[in-house]
């Protein structure tokens, strides 16, 4: 049934959960929300007849419970599709794709190329967002729990690498690049992409049960991808439209 979409139309806006993580999302000095993920969502909802979106920044850990509790209508925050997540929410087709990167000290003193390298060096620590893709990749690569440091946000991770508290901080490539750009610190270096880590794509995440809305979203998304408007929105932020169009939700949700 279309009731969810009708409801959004009549109230005139959809509630988005976004992360505090450029360039997926950005907050301008005047408080206006932009960034690749919300821009795409805003455009599609406009086409669906929902005039506006109301974006609120949320912790990663609070997004899925917030969606389940009906706090948000959709999460557009760079939540990468993975089988477990696909079980918890209803994803749209892929939107933003990115590989994984690591931030390390200049010259990569410990010589990391992959998460396995971190696992092998018994004194090495790696930082990652709690509950994020990178945390899981590191754990799966065999880095023990106590050497995977849960870092609340990107700036904290950057600071911890600068201060030598962790040896590497891992986020998607574009996020790391954005951090680097803002920090402009010549003593840091980015390793991208991390070897052996797949390229992930996110999608707009809907509550289980809102599949009709999701399907309507997908239709508009596909149209935009075809017309090239999709690329026009996300490429200025550094994302590749081709990557998103080369894969599907079903593939990503089935992976591993």
């Amino acid at each position, binding site marked *: 049934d279309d009731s969810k979409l009708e409801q959004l139309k009549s109230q005139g806006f959809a509630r988005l959960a976004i992360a505090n993580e450029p360039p997926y999302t950005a907050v301008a000095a005047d408080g206006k929300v932009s960034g690749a993920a919300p821009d795409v969502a805003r455009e599609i909802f406009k086409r669906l007849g929902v005039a506006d979106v109301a974006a609120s920044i949320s912790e*990663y*850990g609070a997004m*899925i*419970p917030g969606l*389940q509790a009906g706090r948000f209508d959709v999460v557009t925050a760079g939540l990468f599709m993975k089988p*477990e*997540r696909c*079980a*918890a929410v209803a994803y749209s087709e892929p939107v933003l794709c990115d590989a994984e990167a690591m931030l390390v000290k200049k010259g990569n003193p410990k010589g990391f190329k992959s998460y396995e390298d971190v696992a092998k060096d018994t004194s090495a620590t790696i*930082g990652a967002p*709690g*509950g*994020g893709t990178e*945390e*899981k990749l590191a754990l799966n690569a065999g880095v023990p729990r*106590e050497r995977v*440091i*849960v*870092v*609340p946000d990107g*700036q*904290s991770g950057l*600071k*911890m690498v*600068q*201060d*030598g*508290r962790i040896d590497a901080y891992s986020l998607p490539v574009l996020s790391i690049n954005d951090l680097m750009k803002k920090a402009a610190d010549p003593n840091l270096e980015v390793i991208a992409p991390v070897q052996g880590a797949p390229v992930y794509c996110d999608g707009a995440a809907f509550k289980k049960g809102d599949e009709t809305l999701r399907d309507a979203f997908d239709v508009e998304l596909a149209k935009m991808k075809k017309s090239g408007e999709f690329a026009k929105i996300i490429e200025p932020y550094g994302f590749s439209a081709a990557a998103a169009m080369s894969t599907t939700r079903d593939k990503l949700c089935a992976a591993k």
Partner: protein
Amino acid sequence: MDWDWDFVRQILPTLIQGVKITILATLLGSVLAAIVGLGIALARRSPNKALSRTVGWVAEFIRGTPLLVQLYFIFYVLPDIGILLPPLVAGVIGLGLHYGTYTAEVYRAGIDNVPRGQWEAAKACNLSARQTWSHIIIPQAIPPMIPALANYFIAMFKETPLLSAITVLELMNQAKSVANTYYRYLEPITLVGAFFLAISLISVVLLRWLERRYGKIER
């Protein structure tokens, strides 16, 4: 969301790891708070006006601002001036400083509550300042403070989840971590709540006992 006992069993060991860190942080923080508080209380009684005023304002500042922000400050800003602390150490220092400003008030009240007549009787007995403190004032001031101090240590215990902001893997952080791994929130958070409640109820009993045992001096 239905309650899943199997899941509970699965995550319990991880949460217990967090409990250990939580308790460790509380204990270390309490010791530090007890010492810092005494320092502040004595400095504020100092006849040196500059010292007592400065310490007074600093304590007032620490007490008037959130521990969360202080923790950020200690952990992320202090390295800029060359002070690099491991997460747990930074957390314990934050807790100790913050609660030290509270315990200082307890010490102050404890000392003020010794009746003036006791100071005067000590003087009439010709005791020196040191003898008055060690034989008359402190022995009467400490026992009534014990329940109030214990109260703050329990409060501190319940604020340890803040340490997750500076990457200490205490109970709340562990719970969030497992919740994000399995996308189940009800069980971990409820368990955390139950754990805090259990400890609090036990400590209420303990507190009542402390109050009975040390609460007042019969005059």
